[in-house]
């Protein structure tokens, strides 16, 4: 398969389209947790009770004509290939938990991959909407529409005091987790992250690196999300998060300006060195790739590198993960081979840009 075709098939809209503030905010995500009344939660589900959830959705929701959200196909986790599962996880369309540990897990995906509905994850139903750039309110609206559409046909577990009842008490109430993925190289380079993180935590929000292990963020990509789900309305939760995100964006912009002023040539050097590595390396580990991609993306945003599209970072962060590399290779790869394959894919992808 040609790389171009592979990418076209692999890339979801949130990776390839630009959204508001997409120089810093890569994507916005809304997740709603919902459960059906009377059926055991997935945490203690039996095969039968989990099957009952799938049946309820299959009969009441899918049996209708094509939905207002376009075709939504129900896929069972057990029936898809392990590699395909891994790719879906790497694209953030399904969770690792659904892919590996769920009993009778299933999911529905919209064609543009903006909407995914996970079934029998930690809760019976998890609606997820993923949008490019900073579009939390837009994503919330779509998630609410999907929620209303499902609720027309199914009896949700809802309590007057506690709102939407969830398997874990940390999600009860709105069942809403709103999060944004942000690229913050300016704040990391100017060593301001350690000052900002505790402040954000105090506001009831959580920041974490989404790639990489432990506490360090790979590729300077961080996820900011709400922690509490009870007591505030969905709109307030989203507005509060948006407020903090706007602050972080302006901090990041001023950090970039300061960098350009005080260490312009050092920054330019760093950007082009990383660009050189990506263009020329024959073996590259995911950690090095992520750090170079982050530098190159910063270089594009700040105008050092021209004629390369911005979304190369979003795209390559996803496509250079083990699952995707193996899918592109057409079979399993050992870790050493992955590093070789990763370097080749990145070189080719950059080549594609210069040809255009």
């Amino acid at each position, binding site marked *: 398969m040609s790389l171009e075709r592979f990418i076209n098939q692999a890339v979801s809209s949130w990776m390839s389209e630009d959204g508001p503030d997409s120089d810093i905010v890569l994507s916005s995500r809304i997740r709603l947790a919902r*459960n059906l*009344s*009377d*059926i*055991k*939660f997935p*945490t*203690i589900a039996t095969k039968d009770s989990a099957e009952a959830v799938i049946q309820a959705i299959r009969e009441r929701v899918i049996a209708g004509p094509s939905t207002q959200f376009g075709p939504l196909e129900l896929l069972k986790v057990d029936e898809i290939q392990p590699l395909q599962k891994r790719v879906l996880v790497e694209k953030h369309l399904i969770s690792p938990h659904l892919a590996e540990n769920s009993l009778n897990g299933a999911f529905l995906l919209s064609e543009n991959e903006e909407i995914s509905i996970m079934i029998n994850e*930690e809760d019976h139903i998890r609606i997820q909407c993923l949008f490019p750039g900073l579009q939390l309110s837009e994503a919330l609206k779509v998630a*609410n529409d999907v*929620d*209303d559409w499902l*609720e*027309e046909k199914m*009896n*949700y*577990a*809802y*309590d*007057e*005091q*506690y*709102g*939407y*009842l*969830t*398997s*874990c*008490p*940390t999600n*009860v*109430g*709105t069942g*809403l987790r709103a999060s944004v993925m942000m690229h913050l190289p300016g704040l990391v380079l100017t060593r301001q992250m*350690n*000052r900002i*993180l*505790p402040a954000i*935590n105090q506001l*009831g929000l959580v920041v974490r690196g989404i790639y990489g*292990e*432990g*506490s360090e963020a790979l590729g300077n990509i961080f996820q900011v999300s709400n922690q*509490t*789900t*009870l*007591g*505030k*309305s*969905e709109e307030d*939760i989203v507005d509060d998060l948006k407020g903090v995100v706007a602050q972080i964006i302006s901090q990041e912009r001023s950090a970039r300006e300061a960098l350009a002023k005080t260490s312009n040539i050092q920054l330019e050097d760093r950007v082009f060195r990383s660009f050189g590595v990506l263009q020329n390396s024959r073996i590259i580990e995911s950690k090095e790739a992520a750090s170079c991609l982050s530098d190159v993306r910063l270089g594009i945003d700040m105008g050092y590198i021209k004629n390369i599209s911005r979304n190369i970072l979003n795209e390559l962060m996803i496509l250079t993960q083990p699952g995707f590399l193996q899918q592109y290779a057409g079979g399993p790869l050992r870790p050493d081979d992955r590093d070789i394959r990763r370097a080749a894919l990145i070189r080719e992808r950059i080549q594609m840009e210069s040809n255009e």
Partner: protein
Amino acid sequence: MICQECNERPATLHFTNFSNGEKTELHLCERCAQEQGEMFLMNQGAGFSINHFLQGLLNMDSPFQAKTKDPFQQQEEVLQCENCSMTFPQFLKVGRFGCSHCYDTFREYLIPVTRRLHSGNTTHHGKIPKRVGGTIQLQRNIATLKHTLSDLIAKEEFEKAVDVRDEIRALEKQLAEERRGGE
């Protein structure tokens, strides 16, 4: 990365602690983490999770816990959900409910839990589902009217009371119908 304790095995557990704006990190292998009594290990090494923190929160001042510790009250009935048969001790252990009925069964113990988890909040102020929510609104209205009714009766304003009673009946009929429709 090598474990900071034994300097031998690779560190697979990474702890970050923020206090007073200071970030401290701890990198341990599974065995040392266990020896340290940091029981952050989840089932089959799935990493550490919010569960363990949750368990701490849930156990903090549960009156239920205090009761079971008394050997003479061992026979004290154990709270158990009728629908999914999860008991309160089980819930404390796994940090997850078994079904939606558990919330009713354990209700009186949940307020301190939600307060801690959700920055002091104990009541939902967000979306109300259209169908189920419809009856919740009705139930609220009926409850208010019943209050009004007893007030009116107390004040011997019987004519007004009759109107309110009729209104309650109408709403109750509507409620019954909507409930049937929802099945």
